[in-house]
């Protein structure tokens, strides 16, 4: 996954706070995902404007003691959320 890629939320996804944990529902696939706190942060940062590198940099600045692990974790989370179809890649046409 190139770090220049930009991801955004799939259309119509719903998220609910369940006593501090998060459940994300994708109506298109009727899939429900349990997001832990790190995954929720990544989800929230994938706003259609930030690149993968921007997400990594933002989290590294917020959690400097976990610098090394963050890059790998962000890519893992985005990969998983993309496979579950709750994150979609913003194409060149959509960006402009």
């Amino acid at each position: 996954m190139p770090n220049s890629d930009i991801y955004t939320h799939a259309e119509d996804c719903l998220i609910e706070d369940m006593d501090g944990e998060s459940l994300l529902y994708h109506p298109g696939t009727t899939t429900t995902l349990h997001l832990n706190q790190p995954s929720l942060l990544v989800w929230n940062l994938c706003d259609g404007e930030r690149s993968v590198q921007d997400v990594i940099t933002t989290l590294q600045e917020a959690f400097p003691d976990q610098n090394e692990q963050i890059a790998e974790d962000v890519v893992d989370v985005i990969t998983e959320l993309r496979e579950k179809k709750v994150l979609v890649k913003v194409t060149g046409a959509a960006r402009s």
Partner: protein
Amino acid sequence: MSSWLIEKAGVQITVKASGKLAIELLAQVLAVIPHEEVKTSRGVRINLSRDEDTWVLEDKTSNIKRKLAQSGDAIYHLTDRVVFHIADKAKDVHCLHAACVAYKGQALVIPANSGAGKSTLTTWLVSQGFDYLTDELILIYPDGHLEGLARPIQIKHHGLAPIQSLIAQPELVEEGKQVTAIPVAALSNASSLDAADGIALFLFPKYDKGSGFSFARLSSAEAGLRLMGNHINARSLDGHGFSAMMKIMRHEAAYSLNYGGFADFPNDFKQQLEVLLSKARQS
């Protein structure tokens, strides 16, 4: 020929039975499901008849016909069609693939996929004095009350051994290749309800012979995740019913139950459940 109308969540299903044996079997199926005898069909049409030694089940609305050798399977497929049509056509209610019993009008909801042991557990709960609502389908209305489809409890073969001792009137049981259908009347001290005032507790079971007993509180997120897997008409609802179901899950307690047989249950397990249901009722 006799025709009976079942109506749930605005869905009308007319079931016709032709011949004495079919009428008797249908009467058994509908024993604790609200219904009325009608002269003309309304809504979905399902026919049950007997052709020599074979049951013939026809879902006229879906153009499905089945021939079944054993009465337990006729009951299974007949009620399966009823469940399908209710879930397919119900408006503004949440349909859950779940069993349900009640204690003093408050529901213990047991969502689980087929084979997880919810019908076996339901049989035990009913034999302990909880009121039977359903072993398959519950409907949750916007005002919070719920209804069940109180069909005969249907037990797959691997779940039969644990509940054999709970059957007080085995002559009422209908055997089949796929399931054994156990009318509530076959269980001692059994009672049934069509509706409960509200949900007090969720229980997510898993029966695994020889596995032992565990009963653990779930977080609302864990419970919500499991519940959505059993929400069978999500696509028909605004927002797929997700927010509404999560609102319920934030409010009601949920537990997982793993068990290998009823002998694994603590002696006071029934009382534990009653206390949990009573606490929820008071809150």
